[in-house]
């Protein structure tokens, strides 16, 4: 009999409680909403910590919820995979809550923000703590809703509203994929619990298994912004920066990675699915990196880099290197959150100006932000010693060890590109001279080729700066705290195959023995280092060296003007989706509205009424009022009865 762990209820429900309280009593709580919301995330973090030992023994800690149908039992579970995700969600979530108290200070709907953030944490916990596919799907949908609410937080901006709608619709496409997979699972196996499903994987035929994996992966692709369902992520940067940090960098977009890691038995059994997932992951990594080189909005650069890094994670868990993929998730959560929060400090201090061309020289004005961003950039590029180094190499060497050299090559190339564009961002933002006072047209802004990149938001001020600023420690504290794991957490995987990280996940995924012909991991590390060095060098030559810095304004302008339109239009994905799906849908809707609705549906309803009318007139013609007519009808009926009984008969 599985033992219950009621503490899981606390972990799961406390953020929901917070969301409800903050949403209901927001206006009364005013600025107390921030600390309350943060505390209600901090407590689950500590609770999850205390459950460490229970979570890591055997099949983890379990708490049954309810049983709806005999095979459909719902419950919570905290095992090794869930534990990693829960710690990140609540831990990084807590830090971002504290940061938001400073960032969103003075905002007129302060409590609403924290209510939505708490709700998001609850939804994400539902996703990772469920022990069955349907609970996962519920959490999946709820995080989509939370994302919609938070991207559209500044709902008076039409761009934000459009972006939140786009994110939601694309996520729904993913939901359909997962729903289909759940249908196949229930049809074949008849149960929804992970344990039940994974112990009966052999019941699927290979075609069905691929269909299930494909359905699940469509959900992952939508949620984790993989090609071709990635177009919502750059637009999602319309939300406040803490939202981008928490949802669109650290946690929600990694739900796809969680799903694949959780369903490892399914993926282990289907090599076609593995090839598909790995290829899409590699392709996304490369696409995100290429597009990141063309962005001028600091948040969009980070958005594309998120897309690219998640491509790495998906590639890692897709090919079977599960612990490598999860490690990259872990390190990415920290350094991406740090990058976003650092960018948030910059944006906050520059009154919502986000275009890097109008920045420059901030190293002297905001040294703390510079330090934070630099550490984050060093980590993401995979500089040895920083956490990203360990995780990225783990993913790449894992890919090679599982026998996918092409994906490995793409990943290695992407690492070089990542270094280039991250350092480009760093140099353009922090080095040189501050360009905020320069006339924007000198830098090429508001140029016709600009469609697709963000225009500066400097003319809109979302924060009503009524009171004095919140203390700076609220924002710099979390960022400072994040620096530690950004640098150090990768060391968990030091030590090759016997590393603590590898041993931690061995009970879940098993030990993998690579083929004898696999090149050693050191080869991967060396090649990546070479490409990273090359990328940094190119970035330095173009943006960082003193000659380039002196010449910054004309160079930036030239780059803006000469940017290929394929890059400014993000490889025309948006245009393609618009032409293939949006316009036909609108046309179909118009057709229904102009033709079907008035002439078929309304006509049917009208005709129903008219035919009732006609029938009434018909029956009215029977009511002559003449007694003789009624008597004739009686005679007719009597004759019919008589004939019936004689010829057709009643008995006899």
């Amino acid at each position, binding site marked *: 009999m599985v033992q219950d762990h009621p503490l899981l209820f606390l972990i799961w429900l406390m953020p929901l409680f917070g969301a409800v309280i903050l949403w209901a009593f927001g206006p009364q709580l005013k600025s107390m909403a921030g600390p309350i919301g943060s505390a209600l995330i901090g407590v689950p973090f500590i609770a999850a910590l205390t459950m460490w030992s229970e979570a890591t023994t055997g099949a983890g800690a379990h708490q049954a919820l309810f049983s709806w149908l005999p095979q459909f039992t719902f419950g919570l579970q905290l095992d090794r995979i869930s534990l990693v995700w829960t710690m990140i969600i609540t831990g990084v979530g807590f830090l971002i809550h504290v940061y938001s108290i400073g960032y969103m200070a003075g905002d007129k709907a302060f409590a609403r923000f924290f209510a939505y953030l708490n709700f998001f944490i609850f939804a994400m916990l539902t996703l990772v703590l469920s022990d069955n596919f349907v609970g996962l799907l519920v959490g999946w949908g709820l995080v989509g809703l939370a994302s919609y609410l938070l991207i559209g937080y500044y709902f008076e901006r039409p761009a934000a509203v459009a972006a939140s709608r786009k994110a939601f619709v694309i996520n729904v496409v993913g939901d359909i994929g997962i729903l289909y997979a759940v249908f196949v699972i229930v049809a074949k196996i008849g149960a929804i619990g992970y344990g039940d499903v994974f112990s009966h994987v052999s019941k699927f035929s290979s075609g069905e298994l691929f269909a299930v994996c494909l359905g699940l992966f469509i959900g992952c692709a939508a949620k984790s912004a993989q090609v071709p369902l990635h177009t919502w992520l750059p637009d999602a940067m319309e939300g406040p920066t803490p939202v981008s940090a928490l949802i669109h960098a650290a946690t929600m977009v990694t739900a796809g990675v969680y799903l694949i890691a959780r369903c490892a038995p399914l993926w282990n059994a289907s090599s076609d699915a593995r090839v598909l997932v790995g290829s899409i992951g590699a392709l996304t990594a490369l696409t995100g990196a290429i597009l990141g080189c063309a962005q001028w909005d600091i948040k969009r650069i980070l958005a594309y880099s998120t897309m690219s890094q998640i491509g790495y994670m998906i590639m890692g868990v897709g090919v079977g290197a599960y612990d490598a993929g999860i490690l990259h998730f872990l390190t990415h959560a920290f350094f991406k959150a740090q990058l976003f929060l650092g960018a948030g400090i910059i944006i906050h201090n520059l009154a919502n100006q986000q275009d890097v061309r109008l920045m420059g020289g901030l190293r002297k004005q905001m040294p703390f932000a510079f330090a934070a961003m630099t550490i984050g950039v060093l980590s993401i590029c995979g500089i040895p010693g920083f956490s990203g180094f360990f995780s990225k190499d783990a993913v790449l060497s894992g890919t090679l060890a599982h026998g996918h050299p092409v994906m490995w090559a793409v990943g290695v190339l992407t690492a070089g590109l990542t270094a280039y564009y991250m350092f480009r961002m760093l140099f353009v933002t922090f080095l040189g001279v501050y360009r905020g006072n320069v006339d924007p047209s000198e830098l090429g802004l508001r140029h016709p080729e600009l469609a697709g990149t963000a225009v500066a938001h400097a003319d809109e001020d979302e924060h009503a700066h009524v009171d004095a600023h919140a203390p700076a420690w609220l924002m710099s504290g979390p960022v400072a705290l994040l620096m530690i794991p950004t640098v150090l957490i990768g060391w968990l995987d030091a030590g090759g195959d016997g590393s603590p990280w590898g041993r931690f996940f061995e009970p879940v995924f098993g030990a993998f023995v690579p083929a004898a012909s696999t090149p050693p991991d050191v080869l991967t590390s060396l090649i990546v280092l070479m490409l990273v060095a090359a990328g940094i060098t190119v970035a330095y030559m173009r943006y960082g060296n003193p000659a380039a810095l002196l010449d910054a304004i004309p160079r930036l302008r030239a780059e803006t003007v000469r940017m290929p339109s394929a890059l400014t239009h993000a490889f025309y994905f948006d245009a393609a989706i618009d032409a293939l799906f949006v316009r036909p849908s609108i046309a179909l809707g118009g057709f229904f509205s102009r033709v079907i609705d008035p002439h078929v549906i309304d006509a049917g309803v009208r005709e129903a009424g*008219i035919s009732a*009318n*006609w029938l009434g*007139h018909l029956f009215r013609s029977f009511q*002559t009022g*003449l007694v*003789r*007519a009624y008597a*004739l009808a009686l*005679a*007719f009926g*009597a*004759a019919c009865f*008589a*004939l019936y*009984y*004689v*010829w057709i008969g009643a008995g006899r």
Partner: protein
Amino acid sequence: MIGFVVLALLMIASAIFTVTAKKPVYSVVGLLVNFIALAITYLTLHAEFLAVIQIVVYSGAILILFVFVIALLSSGTKPFEPGPNRMPRAVIPAVIFGVAGFAAIVVAISKTVFAPAVIAGATGDANVFGSVADFGTALFTTNLLPFEVTAFVLMVAIVGVVLLAGDEAPGRRAPKRIAREPISPPREPIAR
């Protein structure tokens, strides 16, 4: 057999005359002949009491009632002016239905086997079938409840008639009478 044939022809002829006579008084006379022929038929069927009741009640009371009403309705006016027939040629379907029903009955009869019972004893003796004593016993013992209820029905009829048609003060000068309406124009088509 001859007697039956004569009676049957009489009944049918008088019925047809009743239904087709021009004036109601002629119909009453026709009906009278029909009732008398029917009473004699009852006599041949060992239903003596009923034959007498038929003559006394039916011909003697109900037909007189009809005559009185004919008189009442025709007082002081040109009686029974024929107007336009709103259901011309309604006879045709009526006859068709009648013939159909009749055919059904004939077929039913042809499929039935009748075995009339033998009646022992002289007509009119007490406790022989059809005698008054026999009928009285049946009416007042086995069928007492229907008898009482029928009495109630008759009372209701009396009360009803008094309520409905009483209360007309006599002796006033003749009131203006409503004339017949012209035939109304055809109804409007269904509005679309």
